[in-house]
Structures are given as structure tokens and as C-alpha cells.
């Protein structure tokens, strides 16, 4: 006699493309938190300055940019103090670039753990996005310090408008953009390492197309028409618009970025989900 049997799980090869077990992520939420903690704690162990290094990096990049792009190349900063202009661009850009490059090698750099124990693989990229968010928060603090300095010295007229509410939205979209692109790249690098090289210099080039070192308003014609479809450029401009009051912003372009991010993320999660099952055999 065969008793009716309930199975809590069935492991089989042809899971449907859309069989994404997001509820598992919830069960492993503690792991996400611990990974974030690990990333953050382990990096600054045995350093004297510790998280202060997070200040030093954007500070010196900003100084370099001011010297090269403002003093030497004489690029416009839309009437904003160059330090504020570059620092806000750099802070946003760094967050995106870090999210993208760190998540893009999820599979290759975690092969050791992934090969020995199962947990939803998405835990890793998500924890990277979050630990970078903390890093971003600290650098954002630096930006606010610089901001208050210029306001205090009357070198910059602050604009407190309802648009400030856009900042969290911009940050969230930037995170999703980095995550979506990152997991797509990570899915391909498991088998073909070429993608890692492509990404490495692609990110470098993308910075020049993302309105970090110049305002979008200083471009025109074909270049402007191309750049206004770059979601990173739009997000950075929107960020500057809401924080500093100067920048390219329209609801149409923001909606475009939202749609772009959602599609990218859905596609990314689907590809990631498909690859995670067998990546151990190809990594």
C-alpha cells in the first residue's frame, strides 16, 4: 500500500524559467545581514584609519577632478562650486560602479562556498548592494559636510525643495541598476571570462558617458540625444538636480529609468536563477 506522500521540495533539471524562489531569500535574511557585516568588518580589520578610508577616496578623486577637468580643461560645472559638483557625481558614480563590479563576479569569487553548501545565491549580490549602500551613506555624509561648508561660507545658495524627496528614489534605482547589470554579467562570466574583461574597461568608459565630470546641459545635438538614454547619466543628473537644484530632470526620463531598471532586474534574476543551478560545473 502506498501512502500519499507530501514533498517539501523536488529537485529536477527542467525547472521552468520563471520558477524563482524569492520566498527563500526571506528565510535567509539573517545571512544577508551577516554577509553585509562580514564585508564591512573584514575590509577594515587591521587598518589604522578604518572606515576613514571611505572619506579619503572620494576626497582625493574630487580634488583630482577639480584640478584636471575644472582648472585645466575648464569644463562647466553649471555654476555650482566645482568641489560640490564633482563630489556629488563621484559619490553616485562610485556607488553604481562598485555595485556593478562587485556583483559581477558573484559566482567566480564565491565558488568555494557555493560548491559546498546551498543557500539562495541571490543572497550574495544583494548583500553586496547593501554593504555598498552603507559605504555610500558614509560618503554621502562627506558630501553633506562639504555642502554645509559651502552654504556656511555663502559660496552656494541652498535650494530646499520638494525635489529632495527624489534622492532616495534615485539611490534605490541606482542600486537596482547596479544589481541588475551585475547579476547579468556574473551569470555570463561563470562560463566565459571574456565578460569580466569587457566589464572592466566598459565601466571605465561608461563614466565618461555618465555626466560625472560635466553637466548634461553642456552637451548638445547628437551627443545629448545619446546621453539622455543612458540611465546612469539620468540618475546622476537627477541626483544633482534634487540636491543642488541644477541638472537635467524630467518625469519622462525618470519613468524611462524606472522601466529600464525593472526590466533589467527581472531579466537579470531570471538569467541568474537559471545559471545558479549548474554554474558549479562550468565555473
Amino acid at each position, binding site marked *: 500500500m502506498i501512502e500519499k506522500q507530501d514533498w517539501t521540495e523536488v529537485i529536477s*533539471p527542467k525547472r521552468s524559467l520563471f520558477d524563482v524562489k524569492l520566498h527563500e531569500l526571506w528565510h535567509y535574511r539573517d545571512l544577508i545581514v551577516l554577509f553585509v557585516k562580514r564585508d564591512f568588518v573584514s575590509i577594515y580589520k587591521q587598518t589604522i584609519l578604518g572606515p576613514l578610508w571611505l572619506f579619503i577616496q572620494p576626497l582625493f578623486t574630487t580634488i583630482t577632478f577639480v584640478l584636471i577637468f575644472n582648472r585645466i580643461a575648464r569644463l562647466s560645472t553649471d555654476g555650482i562650486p566645482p568641489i560640490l559638483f564633482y563630489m556629488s557625481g563621484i559619490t553616485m558614480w562610485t556607488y553604481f560602479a562598485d555595485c556593478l563590479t562587485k556583483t559581477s563576479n558573484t559566482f567566480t569569487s564565491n565558488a568555494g562556498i557555493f560548491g559546498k553548501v546551498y543557500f539562495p545565491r541571490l543572497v550574495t549580490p544583494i548583500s553586496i548592494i547593501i554593504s555598498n549602500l552603507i559605504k555610500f551613506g558614509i560618503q554621502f555624509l562627506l558630501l553633506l559636510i562639504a555642502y554645509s561648508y559651502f552654504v556656511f561660507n555663502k559660496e552656494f545658495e541652498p535650494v530646499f525643495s520638494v525635489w529632495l524627496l527624489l534622492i532616495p528614489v534615485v539611490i534605490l534605482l541606482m542600486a537596482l541598476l547596479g544589481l541588475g547589470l551585475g547579476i547579468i554579467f556574473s551569470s555570463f562570466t561563470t562560463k566565459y571570462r571574456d565578460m569580466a574583461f569587457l566589464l572592466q574597461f566598459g565601466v571605465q568608459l561608461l563614466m565618461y558617458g555618465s555626466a560625472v565630470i560635466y553637466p548634461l546641459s553642456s552637451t548638445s545635438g547628437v551627443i545629448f540625444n545619446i546621453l539622455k538614454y543612458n540611465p546612469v547619466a539620468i540618475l546622476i543628473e537627477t541626483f544633482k538636480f534634487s540636491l543642488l537644484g541644477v541638472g537635467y530632470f524630467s518625469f519622462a526620463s525618470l519613468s524611462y529609468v524606472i522601466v529600464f531598471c525593472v526590466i533589467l532586474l527581472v531579466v537579470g534574476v531570471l538569467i541568474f536563477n537559471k545559471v545558479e543551478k549548474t554554474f558549479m560545473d562550468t565555473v
Partner: protein
Amino acid sequence: MSKLAIKVEGLYKQYRLGLVGTGTLAQDLNRWWHMARGKEDPYELVTESNDRTSDGGSDYVWALQDINFEVQKGEVLGVIGKNGAGKSTLLKVLSKVTGPSKGSVKVNGRVASLLEVGTGFHPELTGRENIYLNGAILGMTRGEIKRKFDEIVDFSGVQKYIDTPVKRYSSGMYVRLAFAVAAHLEPEILIVDEVLAVGDAEFQKKCIGKMKDVSTNEGRTILFVSHNMDAISRLCTRSIYMKQGQVISAGTTDEIIQQYIGAETTITSNIAYENLVTAPGNEQVKLLKVEMVDGYYTNKLNFKIDEQVGVKFTFQVLRETDDLVCGFNLYNQLDVHILSSHDILNKGKKYKPGIYISTVWMPQNFLTEGLHYCGVAAMSYKPFTVHFHDVGRIGFNIADKQSGETVRGDYTGVFPGVVRPKLNWDIIKEEND
């Protein structure tokens, strides 16, 4: 009827050999093209089995082929097989580290796998931080770890170093801490791969003890892979035997170990030399047959530690011999010569031509667990001649079924020594008045 915990049906796993290069891309495209037209994957047609010594010329190989078995709830199933038999691949598929190529695995209950101790330990983090991290990786929630934290630290015995980064730990401490976390997992199904191979005897003892504890007292299902037959026979009630990616047989651990030893070693429990010319011996005496027998003269390979083991050998005396002496040597798996015995009492006995059967008995509760090899001999003293000494072909295995009556008692750990006689202990309290 008891419920099933795991049901594996027609499971296949294919691996690609060689390097991943441009050829891989071409194959991927070809595969995709076949799939797009609704045809079968051209590379799945390869039916080569996994034998690593012979090159079949194909780039693909089946590491698992048509695996079917069931595990009852609360059962401890052993998986036995040589290196490369597919044991680890099977465990990887069961623990969802990698997906199967075909077939399915149905699981009932929360699964935790222990394919390695200390997965995800970060050298820069302290012992405390790593307990939380490792626990979470193995699927525990923060609350669960918090509840068991003291127990884990106690078990590991590294209290003093708990707030020191684990990179400062000795390798022993590292393993102890790692295993302590794993030992406190509370899954319904635990998958364990050869983790006992690391660590000292004490650690192995703790491991086996803990696992036995968990399965008998808490009714959890365990899947256990090991090359250590002693551990398997102590822990597992049922086992499956894998060879070249296939399950050759399944049954009680006794049967399966017997079969495994029979198939994977050159040792047998009986030999018959049918051709008198090539049989060991000289023109005076020839060896005809050797068998391992139990008290009922039944030939077998696997003996319980508390039954007597007989070596029965048949020889033919071709010419009358005055002072024939039969001899017997016993070796263990590591080629340690355990003992030697001769029928000295019969010395000088005259043997007329004919066939003789000689049986030498080793008492119960005398030998230790594991494989043993025998040598049987016949010789004469005047002049000293060895008529035959047939060594290394015949052997037997001894297992302790933990009846509680053996020397081992209820102890499950590693038991040292080359023999394990049941000795008398007299312990009396000294009366001081």
C-alpha cells in the same frame, strides 16, 4: 508504514571533460539550435559511463546514471564506493549545490549538507562572528544560533579564543569550532560527506558519536558517505553501493559492505585450486582449497566481532610425509602481522597420501574491526621445507554491530589496537577502616 524522507528517481548527471574554451561556445550554440527546433540535446545522447581510467574519446561523461533509491524517515543510509564512483556528485545534487541533468529528487523536510567543515569561515572574523556566519550559511536563523551559542562554544572547547580572529587559530581549533557549529544544526535531513577524514581521533569520535545520537534519539534522516567501513557499519542500517556512477546494489549495510569488499578488493573468502599442477605446493603436498568459515562451517566474508572465525583449508598429501606441520598467519589492513600459529602439538604426525582438511579457529571477541588477510602454510622440519605458503589472497572482514555485549560497549568512537580481546576486569574498593 513509515514515511519517506528522500526519493531519488532516474537521476542523471552529466559533466563536460576538458577545458572550457571556444569549443564550448560552439557546443552551446549547437545545443541551443537543437533546442530551438525542439530537438533533443545532441550532447545528452552520449552514453559513456564514468570510468576514469579508460578514455572513451567523448567530451562528456555521466557522473551519475539512472540513480534510484529511497530513504525512510529516521534512517541512516550509507553510501559506499571507490573514489570516482559518483558518491560526492550524488550528495552535491541532493544538497542542491549543482543541478541534475535528468531525473528528480524529492525531499521531505529541511535539508542541511555538510560537505566540508567550516564553509564560509572568514579568517579576519573572530570565532564568535564566524559561528553566526557559518551557522547562517548552513541555514540556521540568528535566533537559533543565539540559543545554541553557549552549547556550540562548549562543544568546540575554544572558549578562550572566541573573540580572536580565526586566522590566529591552530588548524585543530579551526576544525573543532567549525564542526561544533555543524553538529548543532537541526535539519530533518542531514547529508554528510567524509568530514570525518579531518581531525584527530578525538574529533572523529565526537563526530560519529554526535551523528549516532542525532539519528537514534532525534529520529533524523542521515545520508552518510565514507570510505571508513567501520564508521559506516556502526552508523548505518542500510547502505547503497555505487560504482561508475551507478547504484550497483542496495540493502542492509552488512550485505553491502560484504559485496563492496568482495568486489573492490582482491581478497576473497574462498579459493579453490582446481588444477593440481598450478596449485600452491610441491611434489609432496598441494593446497586445494581455502575458506573462511563460521561456527557452522558456513563460508562467509563478513564476521561479527563476537563470533568465531575459522580458516578451513584442504590439502592433498601426495607422498607420505613424516613431520608435517600446518601453519597460519594473520595480517590486518595495514599489513601488521598480528599473529602466527602452528599445529605444533601434532608435530611428528605421519601423513599418509590423501586429502586432509585443517581448520584453525580464532575465538570470538578477540580480533578487532576491519579487513584481515590470512596466510596458510604447510611445512616439514626434517629437512626444513615449506611445502606451500599461500598469503594475501584469502581474507575476511570483522564488524562490531554494537550489541552492547562486545568490548566496544556503547562507545562509538575510534577504538585503537590491533586485537580486541575481551579481558576480565577486577575492580574492588579498598576497605580502609
